[in-house]
């Protein structure tokens, strides 16, 4: 084999010039990566994604917890029998218990004795008080079979018939307030998400304009060699899509880690009033698997929003340059 064959295809560049093989070349990117100030944009997108993920995660937690409380509370009816002059409160309570047990759709009836009812008042009245002298009402908790629609008016009439001093509470007002609070939390969360997305779009637009301004000579040359706007925009878009996804993965990933380690974090605050309140309201602050899927989708979505915002700005800027 000749020397030429060993070295592949050669091109004659003249007598005094070195022989250069016509080898395949790694072509430089048309838009150099270093010309786009990406780090700041990745940081902005990461922070925005983190905030969005924390908001979404918290909304999911509150919604899930509220739904749980609501289903617990909605399946209970509380009857309070107040002492009344001329009537035996214990007898009335027993009559109400019997009436409730006879009611269809009620799966469990639990009457509270005088002592048990008194214990319920301890947080307000303290210990050591003699309940004999106080007109302590009797509580009866009835558990409703899930999915049953009770005629509350009829039930109330029946209870009042056997114990005129009784009141029936199906917690509807409390559930309504809970629902309002949950809805308000979700709306606030959506509002924050909206703001975060708008801030992301604005940041990305500025970054895109900056990158286009820095690369204006490249855009002009590409126009000279017959490149259309779509071709030019795609050269930039790849960078912005990558930067957006990078930021989304970092921000979303950190948020997932925060939720993943929330039990440990909650442990640091256990014993404190704030920690106990959170534990009572939201449990361990840990998300369900579906919550993590939502956060992952959201991170990708923010990356995509970055790319779309960048694309819009690119075409607008290309129109200006032309």
């Amino acid at each position, binding site marked *: 084999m000749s020397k030429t064959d060993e070295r592949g295809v050669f*091109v004659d560049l003249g007598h005094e010039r070195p022989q250069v093989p016509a080898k395949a070349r790694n*072509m430089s990117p*048309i838009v150099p990566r270093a010309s786009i100030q990406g780090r700041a944009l990745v940081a902005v997108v990461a922070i925005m994604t983190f905030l969005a993920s924390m908001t979404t995660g918290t909304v999911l937690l509150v919604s899930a917890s509220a739904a749980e409380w609501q289903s617990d509370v909605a399946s209970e009816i509380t009857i309070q029998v107040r002492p009344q002059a001329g009537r035996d409160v214990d007898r009335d309570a027993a009559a109400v218990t019997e009436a409730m047990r006879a009611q269809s759709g009620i799966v469990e009836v639990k009457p509270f004795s005088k002592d048990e009812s008194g214990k319920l008042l301890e947080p307000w009245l303290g210990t050591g008080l003699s309940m004999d002298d106080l007109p302590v009402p009797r509580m009866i908790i009835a558990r409703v079979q899930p999915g049953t629609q009770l005629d509350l008016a009829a039930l109330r009439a029946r209870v009042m018939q056997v114990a005129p001093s009784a009141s029936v509470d199906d917690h509807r007002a409390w559930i309504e307030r809970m629902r309002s609070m949950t809805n308000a939390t979700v709306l606030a969360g959506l509002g924050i998400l909206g703001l975060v997305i708008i801030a992301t779009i604005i940041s990305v637009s500025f970054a895109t304009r900056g990158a286009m301004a820095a690369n204006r*000579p490249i855009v002009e*040359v590409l126009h000279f060699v017959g490149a259309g706007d*779509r071709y030019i925009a795609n050269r930039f878009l790849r960078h912005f899509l990558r930067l957006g996804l990078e930021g989304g993965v970092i921000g979303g990933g950190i948020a997932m880690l925060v939720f993943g380690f929330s039990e440990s974090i909650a442990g640091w605050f256990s014993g404190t009033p704030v920690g106990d309140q959170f534990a009572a309201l939201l449990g361990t602050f840990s998300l369900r698997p579906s919550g993590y899927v939502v956060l992952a989708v959201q991170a990708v979505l923010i990356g995509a929003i970055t790319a779309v915002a960048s694309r819009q700005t690119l075409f607008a800027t290309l129109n200006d340059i032309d």
Partner: protein
Amino acid sequence: MVRFENVGLRYGLGPEILRDLSFQIPAHSFQFLTGPSGAGKTSLLRLLFLSHRPTRGLVNLFGHDVSLLGKDEIADLRKRIGIVLQDFRLLDHMTTYENVALPFRVMGRSESSYRKEVIDLLKWVGLGDRMDALPPILSGGEKQRAAIARAVISRPQLLLADEPTGSVDPTLGRRLLRLFIELNKSGTAVIIATHDIALMDQYEARRFVLHQGRLHVYE
């Protein structure tokens, strides 16, 4: 191939730089464009390259009325035109080879399909050993040759060159003129804007002379 009818151009509210230009450039033709500095040579080239729109008159390019063309159609037409500008406009982050190959890349051709063609042309313009050099380390003459190579590599139907021999010695200037003539013989219409009388004297061709915004054609 190119037809101008009563074309005028002004920048903003300023005076008309070009006035009542009417001429035709047939396919396969060769012409020099000359005139004093500030006469509007570069502006006329930019009109021909569709980077300026006339303020009045008709410009017809390759059978298209350019006032009716959209951006995508203009980009497609530009692929049929090669342009060499005075300031070269090479991309500093790309090697000489990559700069010259850029039109093919924009067309979506694979690197292997044009590699030999690009290398042969770089050799022809004397840049065979500067293929992997970046423009910042090229001399003015080398940059000019690279810019010319980029303009002619895709064998455009119309070649516009603004002072293409301004930064090279007379010998290389003659060689570059030969390149333009060869290109013209292979079917490309050529318009060379130049101040260089010696260059124009080397080749018998139509002369467009711009003076005070008006064009005089000498066959």
